[in-house]
C-alpha cells in the first residue's frame, strides 16, 4: 500500500516525465500593441517636459510536445526511466539509495557517447529565488561529480538549476518540502 509520502514521489515523477516530454522551440513574435503616451505641457515655466512612455511589445515563447519511440530511457520497467535524486535539507550529499540509479545512467552514458544529460537541481520554496538557484546548482554538481567518478566525461553533462521554480508551493511540513529538494536527470532532446 502506498503511503501518502510515496504517492507524492509518484506525482513528482509523473510531473517530471511530462516536463521532459516537452521541447522548447524558438519564440514566435506577436504584433505589438504600441501605444503613444505623449501629453505635452504647454505652459513651459512650470510644466513637465514632453513625455513619451512607450507601449510594450509582447513575445510569446511556446513549447511543443515532441516525444518519440521506444527506448530504455522511457521504459518504465528500466531503472533509466527513473530520473529523480532526492536530498536532505540544506544538503548536497547523495544518499546511498540513489547509487544504483546514478550507476545505471553512468553506464548508459558510457555506452552511448553521443548522449548528453542535463542535471537540473531543485530546492524547496524557502528563501529567495536567485539564492535558491545557486543552491540547486550545488546539488546538480554533486550528481555530476558522481557520474565523473564513474567515468562519464564533462562533455556529456551539463549542470543547471531551477532553484525553487518547480517547487510545490505553500508547503506546511517536511513531507511537502522534501520532494522538492532533488536533481532531475534530463537527456538531450527530451
Amino acid at each position, binding site marked *: 500500500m502506498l503511503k501518502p509520502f510515496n504517492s507524492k514521489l509518484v506525482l513528482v515523477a509523473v510531473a517530471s516525465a511530462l516536463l521532459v516530454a*516537452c521541447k*522548447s522551440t524558438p*519564440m514566435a*513574435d506577436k504584433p*505589438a*500593441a504600441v*501605444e*503613444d*503616451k*505623449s*501629453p*505635452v*505641457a*504647454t*505652459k513651459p515655466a*512650470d*510644466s*513637465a*517636459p514632453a*513625455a*513619451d*512612455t*512607450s*507601449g*510594450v*511589445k*509582447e*513575445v*510569446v*515563447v*511556446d*513549447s511543443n510536445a515532441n516525444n518519440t519511440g521506444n527506448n530504455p530511457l522511457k521504459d518504465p520497467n528500466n531503472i533509466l526511466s527513473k530520473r529523480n535524486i532526492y536530498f536532505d535539507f540544506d544538503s*548536497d550529499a547523495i544518499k546511498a539509495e540513489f547509487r544504483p540509479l546514478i550507476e545505471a545512467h553512468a553506464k548508459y552514458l558510457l555506452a552511448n557517447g553521443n548522449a548528453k544529460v*542535463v542535471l*537540473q537541481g531543485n530546492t524547496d*520554496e*524557502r*528563501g*529567495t*529565488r*536567485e*539564492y535558491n*538557484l*545557486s*543552491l540547486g*546548482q*550545488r546539488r546538480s*554538481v*554533486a550528481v555530476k561529480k558522481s557520474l565523473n567518478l564513474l567515468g562519464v566525461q564533462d562533455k556529456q553533462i*551539463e*549542470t*543547471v*538549476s*531551477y*532553484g525553487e*521554480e*518547480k517547487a510545490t*508551493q*505553500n508547503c506546511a511540513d517536511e513531507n511537502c518540502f522534501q520532494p522538492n529538494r532533488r536533481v532531475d536527470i*534530463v537527456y538531450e532532446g527530451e
Partner: protein
Amino acid sequence: MYELSKNATNFFMTKTPKAMMNLVRTFIFGLLFGLSSYASAALEIEISGGGAQQIPIAILPFGKSPEVPAKDNLHEVIAADLQRSGLFRALDTRGMANLPTNSTQVKYAEWAALQAQAMTVGDIQPLGAGKLNVHVQLLDVLKQSILADMDYQTSPNQLRYTAHKISDMIYKKLTGENGFFSSRIAYVNKSGKRYALMVADADGYNPQPLVSSNEPIISPSWSPNGEKMAYVSFEKKKPIVFVQSLNTGERKIVANFKGNNSAPAWAPDGSKLAIVLTYGANSQIYTINDDGSGLKQITKSTAIDTEPAFSPDGNWIYFTSDRGGRPQIYKVSANGGEASRVTFEGSYNVSPHFSPDGKSLAYIRNDGGKFRVAIQDLANSQVQLLSEGSQDESPSFAPNGRVILYATKVRGRGTLAAVSADGKVRQRLSESSGDVREPAWGPTVK
C-alpha cells in the same frame, strides 16, 4: 519645496492611529468602488497606516465639456496617487456643495473648514482632432494663492497618464522631491502553467505582457533609461539571461553559457550588466555588455556569490554570498578585487537593492523563519524590518526612494506589496487571477 502653513492640521493630528487608518480605508474603498468600472484594472490596491504629517489636500473633480469622454476620473486617479505616497491625505469632497473648476470661483473659507491645506481645481476641454487640454491649478488654501497653473495636452486614452504627471507635479511642488506616479513596475504573473513578465503603471493599471512562456521567468531588471528589460528565462530548460526592448520587442540573449546564467542587474550608466554564471558548484559574479560581449569575472570565491546590485554611483557591486557559512551581503569594487562584508546582524541576509540616493540598502532577512524586507542605513548601519510577511522577496525602491515594492504571500497566493521607506504606510496590490511575484520598480518616464 513650498512651505504650506501648518496651522490648520490640529483636527487630524489629534486622531488616534486606528481612527486614522479607518478613515483612510473608508476613503480608499470609496475610491476603489468609484473606479470599479475600469476593465483595465488588474492590480487592486489596499492601503493601511499613514503618518500624522500627511498634507491634507482636496483634489476637486475636473470640469468637462460634454464632448469629453466620461471615462477616467482624473481627480480620483490623482487622489489615489497622492494617498498612496503616504505623504498626503486626500480629502473626501463629495459632500461639498460648491465644486469650482477655476481658482476665480474658489471660496477658500469652505476648504479651510474642510481642513484642506492645498487643493486643486481644473477642467478638461477638447482641442479638436481628438486632443484634449487639461488645465489644473494647485492652490494654497490658507494663503489663498496659486502655487501652480498648468496645461497638459493629451488624448482620451492618455488621461490616466496625464493624471499621474499631475500627481508628480503636485508632489514635487509640495514636498520638494520628485514624484514616482508616472513610473512603471514590472512583475511576473503565473497563471496555471503560464508565466508572463508584465509591465504596468505604478498604480497597477494598464498591465501589458512583455514576454510569456510555459517555463519560469525570474529576476526582471530595468535598464536605467526604462527602455530595456533584462530577465532570466528558462524557456530552453535552463536559466538564460535576455535583454528585451520594451518598444520593439526585440530580444537578445546576453548570457547563455554552460550551466546557469542569472541575476542580471544594470550598471547605473546602462553600459553593462552584472550577471551570475554558475558552471561548477559555486555561482560567481561577472559583468557583461548588453550585447553579450566583454565578459569579465568580478568575484573569485569558493562560495555562492549571487544577487549583484550596483551602487548608484557605479563604483560598487553589492551581492549575496555564503563565503562565511551563512548567506550575508558583501560588497566588491565594480572592477573586482577583495570583497568586504556589509551585513552583520542576523544569520541570513540576501537580495540587496539600493535606494536611488545610495544611502540605504533594502534586502531580505530571515527573521526567525520569516523572510522579511529590511532596510539598512549605510552610514550608521542601523537596520529596520519593514515588512510583516513570512515569505517576502525582491525589494525595489520607487524612483524617489520613498516606497519599497516587494513580493509577498497572502493566504498562499503571491501578491505585491509596498511599504514606505519609514515603514509607516503599507499597500497591497493583488491581481484578480494568478500568482504575482518578482516585482521591479522602473525609472520615472521622462
